[in-house]
């Protein structure tokens, strides 16, 4: 199993990118009152048919040829089921895929959020030719940011690779997420 939700987000998003998605939307919602965490990763990649949807939940299925097991989705499914939630996959060939995992927030086995900013930096900087959108909500307060907002300022995708931009990106996500969680207004 992976250690925390941020690692699952990175892993599941990497599947989307391998499936040739040009756009990946990550939505993470936490509700303390509703005692839930919901994570979804939606892409416009190649998509899967109903047989493949079943197979990707099986650890002994993978599209890769380098090794014969694919653990990402089975890990996430197991983690969600361990804490009273579950995993759903909606997918259509040629359209894209949505992976949605739900967790009961107060469950002792619920994975911590982990380092979400590090995951986002790895995606935004590692895949400058794709568009990401990250939406985070905590008890109804929301924060959204995406590659498009950043490119609108930089005017050049290659600039996303500049170390000072990567470092800004990490601070930007970290401080906005922390602010939402602490409940302070800006």
């Amino acid at each position, binding site marked *: 199993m992976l250690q925390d939700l941020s690692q699952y987000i990175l892993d599941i998003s990497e599947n989307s990118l391998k499936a040739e998605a040009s756009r990946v939307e990550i939505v993470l919602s936490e509700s303390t009152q509703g005692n839930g965490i919901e994570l979804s990763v939606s892409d416009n990649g190649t998509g899967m048919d109903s047989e493949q949807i079943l197979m990707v939940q099986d650890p002994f299925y993978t599209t*890769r040829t380098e*090794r014969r097991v694919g653990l*990402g989705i089975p890990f996430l499914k197991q983690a969600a089921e361990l804490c009273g939630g579950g995993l759903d996959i909606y997918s259509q060939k040629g359209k894209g895929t949505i992976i949605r995992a739900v967790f009961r927030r107060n469950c002792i086995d619920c994975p911590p959020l982990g380092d979400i900013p590090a995951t986002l930096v790895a995606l935004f*900087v590692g895949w400058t030719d794709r568009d990401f959108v990250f939406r985070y909500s905590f008890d109804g307060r929301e924060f959204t940011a995406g590659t498009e*907002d950043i490119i609108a300022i930089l005017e050049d995708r290659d600039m996303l690779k500049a170390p*000072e931009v990567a470092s800004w990106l990490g*601070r*930007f996500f970290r401080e906005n997420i922390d602010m939402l969680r602490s409940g302070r207004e800006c």
Partner: protein
Amino acid sequence: MKKKITSLEDLRKIKSESKDLTSARSGGKSRIIIGMGTCGIAAGAREVMTAILEILDKKGIKDVAVETTGCIGMCQKEPLVDVIRLGESRITYGYVAPEDVERIIEDHLVNGKIVADKVIGRTD
């Protein structure tokens, strides 16, 4: 005084203040490639990438492209990091920890001296 949180406005400032952001272009420069499959992530590849970006920023190194790739089939040796200096062989480092990163960047990327004790492969 309340500290203002980092915003898109700060990015605008970074862009207007540095003239050489475009030297970060991916053509014609050295590359660092990090394996970011499930195996890499589980072994700490993302932390290695964070360390790489921090050190490049700290040292002001711009003529390198940091990229990620999926699993390449050497899962047991993750985290894997490839360094390709412009015009040189591809060197693969295995079992890379964040604390190894500074050495790899300083010795190999900057000074051209391969960090022999971490090498697990070489492609010419």
